[in-house]
């Protein structure tokens, strides 16, 4: 079982972006909504993750318009990001299967 090479937060962010381009606040609310509120990270800590993905070249960003003429930074997954997402999703799934397999082999609890 290989060690995780991607933080699970990054995996989740890339998954969201594989569907559509989003801005930071949108990612936070979507994460919470889709995970049925399991993932409610402290909102500001999303930004180091996003900027890290950008530095790694897995996402790019562009400026969009928000309400009242305010500028908004949108994130877009790159080809490199899609490839990383695919590889890491498989990694994660096999990791999760491994954990589940060990847990299932434990004697019944309670």
């Amino acid at each position: 079982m290989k060690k995780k090479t991607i933080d699970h937060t990054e995996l989740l962010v890339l998954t969201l972006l594989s569907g559509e381009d989003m801005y930071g606040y949108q990612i936070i609310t979507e994460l919470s909504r889709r995970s049925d509120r399991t993932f409610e990270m402290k909102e500001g800590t999303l930004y180091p993750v996003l900027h890290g993905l950008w530095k790694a070249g897995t996402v790019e960003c562009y400026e969009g318009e928000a309400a009242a003429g305010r500028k908004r930074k949108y994130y877009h997954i790159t080809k490199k990001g899609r490839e990383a997402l695919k590889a890491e999703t498989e990694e994660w799934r096999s990791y999760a299967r491994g954990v589940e397999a060990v847990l299932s082999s434990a004697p019944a609890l309670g």
Partner: protein
Amino acid sequence: MKDFYDEVLSHIRYATAQEKEDIRTELSGHVADRAAELTAAGYDREEAEDRSLAAMGDPEEIGRGLDRQYTHVGLWLYRAVTAALFLTILSLGANLPLYRLHMLADNLTARWSPERSGYRQEEEGPVARALDIRAQVGSDVLYVYKTVFDPATGEAEVYYCNYDQNPFGQASDFLCSAVEVTTPSGGRDWSGRGGGSRGAYYWCASQIQTAPEDDRILLRYDRFGDHLLLEVPLDRGEGIS
């Protein structure tokens, strides 16, 4: 009082001013979006803003997280290279006025192709022989690069130049003219012409009376503690005797 964004940015060491501005805009936009949602849900504006800021989390944690992404080796490399370039140009400007470039050019020409700047023989008939005999004299190099022999008159010419060992250095302006030119049979140069500039000096010792058995020319220099005795082979054009 430092605001939330200042606190975040204070932990980001190597981002550019533009990057920091962009971060501030992005974070404050996020807070504004959250606050808008809360006011829509019924909170008053001030409380909405307070809650939104609180929801962002610890500014130090966010700042340190961002700092890790903005290592910016590129930026520091760029700054280091720019500074080095600036200092180089500054020092070049101070220590190397333009004439030094001419000096350098002269030095290199003397070193590599003295014929380009040195004196040329004019007549047909003389036996010309290119040489490469160099000797260190003080901080200069004396470079004997040609001999010419006129079988009709028995007279020889020796061409030589001097340049500083350091390509940027100034050549000695008396070395060439102070060289004594003799032959084994006791002949000497009766004429000479030379010139040059700071980068290199050239000399042609001419009208050297040679005896038939003189197969070499002697160059002697003895001044200021520098001694030189060079034996320069003289090609009389007679082939292998």
